């Protein structure tokens, strides 16, 4: 029950990971219900602000986009990739747990991968110590 | 003293679309708590902070008149974030209201005088309140001749269309409706407010003019009024500023040492001449 109250926000690229999540649903691959999906036009659209803001309310964040080379807009995910590397490192630097914010590439065909990743990410976040919502949740 | 941040609770009774673009709506609000009707004592020219809980508040001139007991009327143009949200509201929704705030049209000074009311576009709200107040049978004899010039871009933009139709038939007021350019079927005045004013107004020496409209209209109407013999102390206007608290504390609506929310929004041109041109 305790874990059910946790929330994981997933920012999914419209052209791949979102379709992957859809495929997971259609194919009846199970993934945890506390993943809340927000569809975005491209992983390149993920402003760091989205992630930091999501952590005010949610316990963790997953960002997923197209595999490098497969971007609908040619290079959105490649540009995003540099940003993600810095975000991940910055969050680690200020003392966030390794699994709190995670990134992956998931294509539209990888329904099973989506379910696996979602299950793994949600499971890891469930097992982390209680998240403090940037110090606002006591 | 009561908490000035504690609002009245109001129900939206009716929403009227005022123009073909659907970006101008009139909201009729009623008090949820009967006893608030008596507490909310206001005069034409005052304003209120209408609020949507969880969204914010914004100041609007009260378009209804005190004699319209139990209801308040606000006409709101869709401009920014708050007005967009307000336009999405429906009849039956609950909104909040703080007020009445600010001063009123100079009713004491108007007593026994001829009054020239000049309005443009959707800025006729508190002027409507005043007209409604003046034509109330028990008040009408307090005032002299009433001339009203109301100009709009085109007929569709006229606020309170039904009411103006009725006012056109009244013997005790002279109403001059105008639109900027000729439109088929329009049989009233055509031209900008300043020229219509120059043409139709022939004021007595003690008459007082009240002007409310877009800045450009006011800018060109003032010299006309001065030519017609109005001295700065006999011309009044109502100002708009970004406001938050409405009670002279938050510090953003001042023009010089005057706060538009508390010392205004109604100022005479004589008063404004003493203030910096920062509005």
């Amino acid at each position: 029950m305790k874990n059910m109250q946790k929330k994981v926000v997933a920012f999914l690229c419209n052209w791949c990971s979102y379709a992957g999540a859809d495929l997971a649903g259609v194919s009846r691959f199970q993934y945890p219900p506390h993943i809340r999906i927000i569809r975005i036009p491209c992983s390149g659209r993920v402003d760091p602000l989205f992630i930091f803001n999501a952590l005010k309310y949610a316990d963790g964040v997953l960002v997923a986009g197209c595999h490098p080379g497969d971007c609908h807009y040619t290079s959105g995910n490649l540009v995003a990739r540099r940003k993600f590397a810095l975000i991940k490192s910055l969050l680690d630097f200020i003392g966030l747990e390794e699994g709190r914010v995670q990134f992956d590439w998931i294509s539209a065909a990888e329904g099973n991968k989506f379910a696996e990743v979602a299950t793994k990410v949600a499971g890891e976040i469930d097992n982390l110590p209680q998240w403090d919502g940037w110090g606002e949740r006591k | 003293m009561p908490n000035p941040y504690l609002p009245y609770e109001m129900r939206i009774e009716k929403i009227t679309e005022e123009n073909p673009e659907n970006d101008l709506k009139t909201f009729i609000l009623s008090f949820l708590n009967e006893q608030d009707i008596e507490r909310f004592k206001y005069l034409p020219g005052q304003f209120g902070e209408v609020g949507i809980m969880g969204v914010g508040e914004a100041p609007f001139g009260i378009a209804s008149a005190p004699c319209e007991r139990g209801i308040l009327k606000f006409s709101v143009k869709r401009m920014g974030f708050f007005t967009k949200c307000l336009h999405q509201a429906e009849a039956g929704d609950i909104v909040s209201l703080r007020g009445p705030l600010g001063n009123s049209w100079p009713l004491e000074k108007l007593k026994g005088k001829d009054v020239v009311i000049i309005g443009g576009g959707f800025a006729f709200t508190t002027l409507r309140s005043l007209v409604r107040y003046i034509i109330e049978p028990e008040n009408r004899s307090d005032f002299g001749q009433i001339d009203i010039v109301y100009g709009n871009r085109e007929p569709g933009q006229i606020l309170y269309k039904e009411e103006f139709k009725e006012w056109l038939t009244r013997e005790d007021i002279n109403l001059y409706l105008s639109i900027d350019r000729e439109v088929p079927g329009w049989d009233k005045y055509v031209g900008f407010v300043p020229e219509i004013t120059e043409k139709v107004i022939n004021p007595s020496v003690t008459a007082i003019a009240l002007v409310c409209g877009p800045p450009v209209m006011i800018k060109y109407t003032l010299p006309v009024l001065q030519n017609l013999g109005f001295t700065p102390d006999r011309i009044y206007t109502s100002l708009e500023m970004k406001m938050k608290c409405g009670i002279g504390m938050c510090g953003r609506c001042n023009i010089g040492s005057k706060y538009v929310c508390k010392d205004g929004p109604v100022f005479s041109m004589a008063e404004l001449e003493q203030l910096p041109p920062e509005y």
Partner: protein
Amino acid sequence: MTVLENIKAKAKELLEAKEVEVVIGFAQGTLPGKCTPYFARTTEEVERFVWQDGCNLNLANYLSKFSGKVGIIAKGCDTRSIINLIKENQVNRERIYIIGANCPSMGSCHNCRHPQGVIADFYAEQVQLNNQDDFSDVEAFEELLSEERKNYFYQEMSKCIRCYACRNVCPACYCKECFVEENLPCWLGKTTDLADNIIFHLTRTMHVAGRCIDCGACVRACPMEVNLSLLNRKLLKDIQELFNTEPGLSLEAEPVLNEYKEDDPQPFLIGGEESV
């Protein structure tokens, strides 16, 4: 001639020849050790210029305030910010005349690698200084336990009063409307809640990443003495390690987050680099 004399001579020359309408530099401040930005429009005004410890603001921040031709006395940081601004079309290279000079306040940033100008139209001095930034401060912090790091970070963030001095003195923060002021949607609460402070600073750090050149203007501007330098320098170190580059050194290279390579490292992936 001293550096200052060189600077003044050049500034006068530019103004007299009407090559520029104003020269941006520093004058003596009103508090001990403080210098203040100064805008000289006449040769007499040039006499008020100083070049000394305390000239530590980033003057590149003022370039956008002028529309005509502008001279600017620029130390290493300033020139690197100017490079960034030119590359991002915020400043027209033709419009500015850069008087380069070594940073006179060597005390305040002990590991500055580029105290001398990176680009200039005229160098007021020609000393080549070679410093090494070992990022020892960042490394020392990385050594701490995650709990310690988080506590320190939270404590620093709780000091912020959201006066936006850090943002407003930063040449990289040139947005006409910052996300903190947007209200449609409203991204950030207008409070000094710890969460709102953290979101503001993390986002700002990321927004200037790849363009921040660690001039330290934000740190010196902060009235509450929040340690902002730690975040900015961490990302500088990462950019060095991951992408092997340093912002604001060349007019040709794109800002590091505006470009990519096919084989950029992706250590952030679930399962690490090799998962793809």
